[in-house]
Every structure is written in C-alpha cells, then in structure tokens.
C-alpha cells in the first residue's frame, strides 16, 4: 500500500490538459461548440474609468517588481514550494544539527534593571531524541536539555547553577512530545498549511521562500503540549516563528523565533523574551557519541522543585 504522502503526490500530479479543441469550445476561438462560447468582446463600456497616471504608476511598480521577482524570465521556482514539499524533504533526512544565537531579555522590574544575555545554541535531533545546548559567549556550556523519545526521559543540566533535573514523561504524552524537537516543532507549527508566506527573498545568498506563524503557543497547545508541560517548562505567550526554505533542497535553512515566556522553568520562573536565530543547518549529521541520558555531573545537585512533575 502506498504511503499517505505518495497518495498526496499522485493526486497533485494528476492533471487534465486542455487541447486546442477545448479552447475553441470554451472561448469560441474559431469553432462552434455545443455550448455558446464565452464572450470576450471589449468590456470597456461597463468598466469604471481609471485615472491614466494611476495606471502608469501601477504599471511601473508592477514592471519593476516583475523584473526583481522574475529576473530570468522563467518564473520564480521558490514560489511554488509548499510546506508539504518541505515535510517530504525532511522525512528523507536521518537527523539535524543546528547552530545559532539566542538573546534572552528579562524586562526591567521595580528595583531591577533590564537584563540581556546573548547565548550560542546548538541542537541535535534524530529519530531517537533531541539535545538542545545553550552556551555563553565564551563557549562555556550553560544549559543542556535532552529528551529520549521512546523512554520519555527528559534530562536538564544547569551548568551555571550546577544543578541537574530528570523526569519521566508519562507514556500517554511521549508521542506528542516528539514535537519539541526542531523537526517536530517545524511540522507542528507549519503543517496545517495556513502559515503566512514570505519572500522569495535573499537569505544566505539564496532566493529562499519563507513561512511565518504568529500564534505559536496556540499551535503547540493544540498538538504537543499537555498543560503541565506548558506551565512548567515553556509557558509561551505571544510568539512568532519564521522559517526559510532552501529552494534547491526544499529543506529549512534559517529560522527566526521571537518568544515571550512567562513563569516557567526555561524563563527562571519570571517573564523573559527569547529571540533566537538558527542559521546553520546540517542535515543528516548523525548523533553518534552524544548521550540522550546524560548522567549527573560530579558536584551537581539534584534539583527538586515543589509541585514539579
């Protein structure tokens, strides 16, 4: 039996092409069909008049944009990319390694100034699990989060605090939480097909096409997060994610996120704005040698949080 995606491709590929005879029948281009042809005589008599200078302006803008958007005269291939193409391309990859930058801003509070931290990030993901590491600007590790999908084991290592936290996700939520990895997150956010389209635009030297969603929390709530995950780990408020696609490989190549977190573990139980840019994507790197079950480092304290899962 063919896969769901293969059937979608087959349906997409099924086409009806009009021959000259169909054109003649519908438009009456030189032949008489069984139905009267569509009248294509001039319609100026029933159309509003448009100020000539306005038309000229529209023409100039349109021509200018066409030159920019269609430089080779053959149309713009990236425009045809839909998210299903991206999903298919991602499915053919074994894993992903992503690096980027993260800017965390803690807004000013009474008696507390605004604090801004610039961090480097590194993520690995495969069918087995997901690792997310945050470094400070000197390259020193600050935080590591690991999630092993099958066993539902989440391990958080706070290097700055020298603390260590591990929990077991209940069986019922394990599959849903696969969506917290980068590929799962991208699918969760964009697979409904209603993301705003961006570009094509020059991104890292390529005519990339983009997708943008702004109701990130709602999308995650609907598909990934049981409430306790949301309120404990990543309590998102207004957030927006933009994803740019490599027109040649159909794979994500650049992602920008602007997240507001409130009172959760990732925001130190206060309000935090997290702006993240992931600009280096290496597909299918393998995560051999990396542990999804890191042990508690020497001298680290087991973290206990009252009321935590």
């Amino acid at each position, binding site marked *: 039996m063919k896969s769901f995606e293969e*059937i979608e491709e087959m349906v997409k590929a099924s086409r*009806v092409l009009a021959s000259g005879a169909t054109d003649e029948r519908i438009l009456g281009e030189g032949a008489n069909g069984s139905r009267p042809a569509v009248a294509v005589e001039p319609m100026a008599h029933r159309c509003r008049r448009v100020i000539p200078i306005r038309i000229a302006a529209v023409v100039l803008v349109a021509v200018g944009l066409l030159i920019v958007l269609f430089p080779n005269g053959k149309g713009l291939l990236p425009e045809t990319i839909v998210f299903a193409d991206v999903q298919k391309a991602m499915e053919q990859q074994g894993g992903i390694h992503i690096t980027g930058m993260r800017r965390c801003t803690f807004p000013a509070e009474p008696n507390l100034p605004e604090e801004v931290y610039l961090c480097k990030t590194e993520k690995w993901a495969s069918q087995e699990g997901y690792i997310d590491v945050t470094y400070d600007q000197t390259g020193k590790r600050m935080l590591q989060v690991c999630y092993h999908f099958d066993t539902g084991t989440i391990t958080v290592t706070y290097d700055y605090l020298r603390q260590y936290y591990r929990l077991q996700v209940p069986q019922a939520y394990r599959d849903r939480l696969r969506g917290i990895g980068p590929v799962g997150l991208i699918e969760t956010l964009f697979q409904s097909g*209603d993301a705003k389209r961006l570009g094509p635009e020059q991104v890292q030297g390529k005519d990339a096409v983009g997708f943008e969603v702004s109701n990130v929390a709602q999308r995650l709530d609907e598909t990934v997060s049981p409430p306790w995950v949301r309120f404990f780990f990543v309590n998102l408020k207004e957030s927006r994610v933009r994803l740019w696609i490599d027109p040649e490989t159909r794979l994500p190549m650049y992602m920008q996120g602007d997240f507001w977190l409130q009172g959760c573990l990732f925001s130190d139980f206060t309000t935090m704005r997290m702006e993240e840019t992931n600009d280096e994507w290496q597909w299918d790197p393998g995560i051999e040698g990396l542990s999804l079950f890191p042990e508690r480092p020497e001298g680290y304290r087991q973290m206990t949080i009252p009321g935590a899962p």
Partner: protein
Amino acid sequence: MERGFLKDAWLAQRLLRGETDALRQVYHLYKHDLLTVAASILCDLHAAEDCVHDVFAQFAAGVKDVAVDRNLRGYLMRCVANRAKNTIKEQHVRRSHAAREADERPAAESPMGRLIATEQSVQVFQAMAQLPVEQREVITLHLHAEMTFREIALQLGLSINTVQSRYRYGIEKLRTLL
C-alpha cells in the same frame, strides 16, 4: 508558468479596464488548473469542461462586480469547485463517462478527444470518484487549488477539524484504491 499574486493583480486590473484579450489570457493562464479541479471533483472530463465553460461565461458577464484584488487564480479555483459541487447536487452528472461517450455525442466532440489526461491521472480520477463528494472537494481544494485547511474551512463554513478529517479519511481511502 509565471504565477502569483502580482500577475493576478495585474490581470484583474486589465479585466476591470475592459481589455479585449484579458479574459483570454486569464483562461490560458489557468485553464489546466481549473480543468483539473473540476475533473477531480466531478470525475467526468466532459462535465469538467462544461463546468469551466460555465464559470468563464459567468466571469465574463460579471467581472466588474468581482472583488478580485490579488488572488485571481484562487478566486477562479473556488468558483470552479463551487460550480462542480452544484453540478453534482443538480444531478447533472448521472451517467458514467463511458456511458456518456457511447451516448449522443459524436466521437470527435467527445471530451476525451479534447481533454488530455495521463493514464495515471485517469486512475486517480476513477479512485476519487469512489469518495464522497465532500472528501473529494477538500482534497481537491487543498492539493490542486493549494488552499490551506483554514481557508477551506472558511470557504465551506466548516470547522478546521472537520476539513482535516475529511481530508485524512479521503486520502486513507485512496490508499486502499490506488
């Protein structure tokens, strides 16, 4: 094919200005897409041709009243899908394609003589014919008209969950047929 909002906006502008050949250009630009949408829902090539013809006739007659600002293609796709569904409701498609071919039409005028579809496309249309029209419609609007589930839900006055369910059930059924 150059396709997109900008071209649509430009064509719509020309239509509103009453340019003689704008409608012809619109037809030639989107005819294959529109015929495919109609054929996918009606599963009948002749009826698909009639459907596109009717939409263009209406479009030509009422173009000044149409609120087409940017997405002319999307607008036409929705018109064709609606017209196709109405055709089914009106029971204009009662007979199989084979019966119709054998009927009153001369061979030279048969849709198979005018419309071109690959063998695989015909297989897909035959399989689609076995789905309820509601599933066919959603699959066609999503895969051929490139509408999002949210847009389809708005268009059909359904919840997004219903649209997604129809899509999923339809594709699953096609998996057993193709």
